[in-house]
């Protein structure tokens, strides 16, 4: 009897009218946990019932506490017929099981029905009493903290990073069970929601057990995904990084706690660098074989082919004995998978970065026969991970950071993908004690760029030069990584979002034929995506990519590839050469003229981009640059196995290794198209920047304006005979237009940056392309950034701290002069950060000033944006006193922090899965209306849960799944959404120590007291 769960149903409000005759409702509530159910009394004839129930007590095992959600059902009592369900609330009580997280859940929750959406709200109070020492219970892992955040959470210190944890559980999908034919859509949806909730709970508990075994107390970078495999079942899988975290005492947040978003090298996670192996063409081995019922095609995409054709052997194979070139053997090599889901690190953690490693594999799905033994799926992932591991070794690295896994499923075909960045880590963190230190400690700001591999045994062709920063170590010419840019890295100018987009048609097929066709296409797609990325990088005169994420999505008749990354000019790396156009048919005058024109356009674009992104690297003093390293021809030695096709491909080597300029040959219309598409990418309008990493390289002075958004677009292809080129164009336009829409909608926030732009593509049906984007728009102070870049285009992060000290004061002056409101007023109020809009409504505010009402109160606020807010500062102040808001404002962001604020407490992970279905699609405004309200509802439910935990923000928010199925002819649609994030309490940054990135006026003149709810 390890725990007692207590729940009290307080009241309801805004209930729907369930009795047409009286226009009222006779509501009561069922509270269910496990197999125990309690009921409240019926509160007759009211839309705002006050149940004020007794405490319902559930005595349960803590294992159940972890797995099960508390299920609250609101019903309308009906004397003569069956009671009608109004809706349900599922509450994950996990956050209550950890002493450091929330202690009580209390608040208004939207009552949700899968058919009708939100129908009123219910006020609930929940507590948990745990009786015994948690660790004695082997099946439970209460107390292990989970974080979605992919860095060491602010306000914690990593005592030790233990490494990779993974788990998956499988089950039958209720939607495909026979019973589904006879039950209502509502019952089916609810069964599914409940099952997934249970499975996530179980998964989390199992992962927690593994962490305890490893001696850790937390999982960071927890990434949980669903594979809806249809007939063959439902898979819930998760990966994460086990750590031992120490809570920082509140007084000393600065050490290495990463408590602010800033670039301050000290505090934020240390960097890791990365270097790209990607210039090497794709070498692919397609090994296909039949494993019992499972067809499997493995498509390694990097240089090395991993286990070659022995693909299925991997599972319990023990430590890999392959070429261990690295002299420094660390603990990592004894681990099965030295992987880290983190994308940014404590200082000193990351030593060198090798480049991106990735692996994909095509599988045929088969019914999961025994849910208790998910071996097949385990084996699949095992294979892929082995491959990744061996790729990393080939790059001379013993670890993989920024690691993630994903799937794309279409009918019975499934593409499994994994990618990460090969790296060398400081072993100190792995052991927790100081072991062998690296002999030469490279300068912190450029160390991660230095090559980890032996320059005589380069795994791929690349041109090495001496580091432009320290002049001592070798660096590659280009670096690709999946992680965030290390905060101490020195960059020139600003970064920008770079996307490569690609569509490939494929024939419709079944089974193995289909899988083979897909696996044959994959290497070409990767190759083309890389080429595009490289071209676009050069076109912007940049030399490194961070946050690279390549998604390949499979549909019945096409494959979509989307690679997103943030390009930057790393000061430590050599300047990129230009792009040179060459024609295949020199005789043709017309052609030559054409080529000249294109060449000119390209050159113009490069020049324009340099200016746009403020890339003006310092002049090189030639004598300092070491002579180029002899081209290492011996590399082939390292290539263990090549398939025939890969030899062929290597001829297409993107040979920037040898030439200054990148040469594009125009030999056919395809090439012309490619170049054309290269040039049609629009740069963001003035005042906007965009990136897919946490922060925009080159922008340091964030203000506190934050707007998180989700946007979904679905395009229907209506031309019957589309070519690859035509499709590419459509797909590219789709992505570009989405970006344009964002810029337009968010124009009131200028100057601002779209951060963490996360694109997800899917092919939900034969002729549909779906793109879903979640990102956050953040304001920054323009003047500062300009000043900064003008002053010192190439300085590194550490100096910035001092420089920025002077800014906050100026800021105050600015804002008060521009709108004559004393800035001291603002600081106190700071309720919500709607600053960007505030300036447009002053006249209305005048009207409002006259009234005295009581609606809003005490929302927890964090911070306020400096400039436009100053304007409305005193208005807001009035509102605070006039309106007593019962709704806490909850900010959401995909980043791990909110600018201008400090996270003081993590309340637990938010991981929610919702299904919404309608049989009156037209009446709800078509698919757009349907999805619009569903997304709004999901946001509302996330906010309500966070507020009930006592939080005021969600960080590291992501929408992992958005599956929309529609049938307009039947007037029906169904949508599934899975979201996750970390609920936190944050307060306005009041630290007196300068945080370079958080120059909000609040910190200069306010008390953060109003931050507490």
């Amino acid at each position, binding site marked *: 009897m390890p725990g007692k769960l207590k729940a009290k149903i307080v009241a309801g409000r805004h209930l729907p009218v369930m009795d047409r005759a009286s226009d009222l409702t006779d509501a009561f509530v069922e509270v269910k946990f496990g197999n125990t159910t309690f009921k409240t009394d019926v509160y007759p004839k009211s839309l705002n019932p006050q149940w004020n129930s007794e405490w319902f007590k559930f005595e349960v095992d803590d294992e159940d506490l972890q797995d099960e959600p508390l299920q609250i059902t609101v019903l309308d009592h009906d004397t003569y017929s069956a009671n009608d369900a109004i809706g349900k609330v599922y509450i994950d009580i996990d956050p209550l099981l950890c002493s450091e997280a929330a202690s009580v859940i209390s608040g*208004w929750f939207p009552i949700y029905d899968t058919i009708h959406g939100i129908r009123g709200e219910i006020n609930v109070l929940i507590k948990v009493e745990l009786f015994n020492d948690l660790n004695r219970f082997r099946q439970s892992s209460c107390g292990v903290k989970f974080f979605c955040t992919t860095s060491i959470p602010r306000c914690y210190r990593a005592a030790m990073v233990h490494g990779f944890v993974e788990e998956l559980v499988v089950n039958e999908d209720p939607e495909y069970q026979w019973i589904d034919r006879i039950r209502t859509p509502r019952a089916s949806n609810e069964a599914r929601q409940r099952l997934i909730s249970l499975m996530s709970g179980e998964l989390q508990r199992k992962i927690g057990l593994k962490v305890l075994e490893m001696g850790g107390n937390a999982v960071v970078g927890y990434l949980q995904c669903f594979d809806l495999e249809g007939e063959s079942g439902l898979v819930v899988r998760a990966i994460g990084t086990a750590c031992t975290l120490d809570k920082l005492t509140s007084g000393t947040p600065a050490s290495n706690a990463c408590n602010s978003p800033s670039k301050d090298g000290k505090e934020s996670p240390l960097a890791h660098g990365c270097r790209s192996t990607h210039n090497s063409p794709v070498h692919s081995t397609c090994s296909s074989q039949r494993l019992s019922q499972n067809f499997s095609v493995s498509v390694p995409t990097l240089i090395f082919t991993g286990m070659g054709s022995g693909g299925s052997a991997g599972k319990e194979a023990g430590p890999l004995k392959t070429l261990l070139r690295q002299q420094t053997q660390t603990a990592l090599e004894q681990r099965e998978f030295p992987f880290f889901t983190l994308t940014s690190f404590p200082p000193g953690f990351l030593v060198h970065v090798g480049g991106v490693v990735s692996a994909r594999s095509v599988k045929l799905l088969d019914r999961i026969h025994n849910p208790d033994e998910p071996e097949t799926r385990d084996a699949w992932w095992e294979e892929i991970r082995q491959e990744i591991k061996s790729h990393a070794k080939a790059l001379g690295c013993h670890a993989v950071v920024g690691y993630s896994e994903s799937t794309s499923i279409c009918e019975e075909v499934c593409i499994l993908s994994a990618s990460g960045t090969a790296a060398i880590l400081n072993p100190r963190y792995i052991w927790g004690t100081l072991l062998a230190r690296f002999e030469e400690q490279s300068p912190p700001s450029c160390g991660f760029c230095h090559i980890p591999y032996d320059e005589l045994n380069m795994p791929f062709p690349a041109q090495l030069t001496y580091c432009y920063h320290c002049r001592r170590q070798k660096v590659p010419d280009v670096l690709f990584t999946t992680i965030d840019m290390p905060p101490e890295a020195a960059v020139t100018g600003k970064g920008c979002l770079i996307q490569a987009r690609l569509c490939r048609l494929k024939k419709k097929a079944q089974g193995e034929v289909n899988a083979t066709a897909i696996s044959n296409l994959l290497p070409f797609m990767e190759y083309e995506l890389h080429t595009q990325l490289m071209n676009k990088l050069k076109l912007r005169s940049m030399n490194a990519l961070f946050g690279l994420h390549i998604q390949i999505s499979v549909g019945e008749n096409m494959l979509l590839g989307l690679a997103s990354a943030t390009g930057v000019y790393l000061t430590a790396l050599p300047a990129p050469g230009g792009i040179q156009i060459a024609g295949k048919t020199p005789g043709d005058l017309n052609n030559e003229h054409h080529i000249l024109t294109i060449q000119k356009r390209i050159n113009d674009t490069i020049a324009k981009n340099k200016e746009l992104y403020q890339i003006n690297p310092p002049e090189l003093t030639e004598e300092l640059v070491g002579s180029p390293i002899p081209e290492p021809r011996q590399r082939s030695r390292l290539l263990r196995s090549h398939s025939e096709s890969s030899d062929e491909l290597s001829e297409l080597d993107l040979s920037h290794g040898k030439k200054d300029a990148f040469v594009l040959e125009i030999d056919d219309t395809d090439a012309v198209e490619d170049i054309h598409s290269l040039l049609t990418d629009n740069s963001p309008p003035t005042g906007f920047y965009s990136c897919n990493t946490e922060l925009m390289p080159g922008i340091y002075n964030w203000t506190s304006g934050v707007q998180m958004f989700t946007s979904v677009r679905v395009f229907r292809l209506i031309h019957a005979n589309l070519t690859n080129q035509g499709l590419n164009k459509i797909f590219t336009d789709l992505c570009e237009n989405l970006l344009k829409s964002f810029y337009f909608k968010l124009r009131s926030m200028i100057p601002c940056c779209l951060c963490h732009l996360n694109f997800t593509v899917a092919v939900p049906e034969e002729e549909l392309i779906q793109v879903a984007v979640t990102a956050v728009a953040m304001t920054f102070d323009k003047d500062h950034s300009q000043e900064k870049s003008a002053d010192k285009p190439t300085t590194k992060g550490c100096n910035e701290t001092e420089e920025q000290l002077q800014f906050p004061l100026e800021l105050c002056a600015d804002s008060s002069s521009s709108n004559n409101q004393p800035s001291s007023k603002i600081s106190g109020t700071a309720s919500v950060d709607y600053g960007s809009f505030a300036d447009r409504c002053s006249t209305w505010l005048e009207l409002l000033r*006259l009234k005295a009402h009581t609606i809003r109160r005490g929302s927890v606020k964090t911070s306020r944006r400096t400039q436009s807010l100053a304007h409305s500062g005193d*208005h807001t102040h009035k509102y605070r006193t006039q309106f007593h808001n019962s*709704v806490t404002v909850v900010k959401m962001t995909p980043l791990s922090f909110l600018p201008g604020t400090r996270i003081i407490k993590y309340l637990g992970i938010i991981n929610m899965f919702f299904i919404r279905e309608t049989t009156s699609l037209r009446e709800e405004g078509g698919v757009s209306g349907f999805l619009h309200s569903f997304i709004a509802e999901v946001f509302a439910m996330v906010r309500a849960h966070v507020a009930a935990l006592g939080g005021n923000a969600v960080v590291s928010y992501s929408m992992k799944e958005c599956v929309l199925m529609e049938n307009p002819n039947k007037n029906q649609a169904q949508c599934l959404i899975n979201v996750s994030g970390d609920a936190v309490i944050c307060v306005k940054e009041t630290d007196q120590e300068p945080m370079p990135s958080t120059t909000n006026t609040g910190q200069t003149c306010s008390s953060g007291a109003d931050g507490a709810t």
Partner: protein
Amino acid sequence: MAVELDVFVGNTTIMDEEVYQLWLDGYTVNDAVKVRMEGGVLEECEASADVLLSDTMDQYRTFHMCERLLHSPTKLANQLLFQIPPHRQAILIERYYAFDDAFVREVLGKKLSKGTKKDLDDISAKTSVTLKSCRRQFDNFKRVFKVVEELKGPLVENIRQHFLLSDKLARDYAAIVFFANNRFETGKRKLQYLTFQDFAFCAGQLINNWTVGAVGKAHTFSCIDNLVDDMDVDLDKEFLQELKELKILITDKDLLDQHKSLVCTALRGKTKAFNEMEANFKNLSRGLVNIAAKLTNTKDVRDFFIDLVEKFIEPCRSDRWTAADMRLYLTHYTNSAHILDTFKHQVVWDRYMGVIKSCIFKMYHD
């Protein structure tokens, strides 16, 4: 290629005030896009027509989803679906309940019934306010009317509390409710020159002085919390009854002459229109007192404004009184009655004339 679905949802609900206004004004999405294009947003943001269309659709959808909440504004503050900062909520509400003067002028004093609703297309054609917007405004009137009808206490305060409107707008709605309840005639040709604001002002005067609620207020004027049990919507029957007593001012010949001479003495030499005032005194006085005496009849209440215009304002206007003349005359006319020793109804007289005076001042223009 066709966009099958296109949505954008912000954690903080994004609303563009310009688009909101277009939506309120009843523009279709396409018309709204046209207007916005002409407005020049595009150049400003390097966007294309597609972008504008997509944005407009998103916003229209958002407004449509919010509309339900706007019908009971107090819900907007504690609903969870949209995260809208308080000052934005206030703007949304205020604008949703704003109305066109041209429209309200047509409906003022009419019964807020289905019948009137059917005439909205005519009103729409006449005022060139879109039918959609007319409907919204009409439904707003009706909704406010329905809610306050059943409430006790001060009208303006009730409206302000239930609909979270600004003071000004709440007063306007009080006027609309008051007019609709008492069915004052405002549509006659002779009344066409009066604006809604003229009527709203008069309604305010009537509400504050002639209703049952007004009696309580007169004593504890500063204390709004003092909830009077009776409504502000109906005129004080007792008072109307008492008004009959004023008839003595015109039926008693002596009193009438005495009153006239007092007024004339005071006015002599102070205005160019003195002769006309002197000549018309008895007519004008009869006019005003007769209006007072007839107010017990519902029918005559309805004609209150038309009577004021016909019996008083028009004669004065044809004699070319200036506004200052009017002020002078009415002030002395009212005050002189106090000096009449046989006239015992000073309190009723003041209560009556105070309102009449301010209404006429407001209504006396071209």
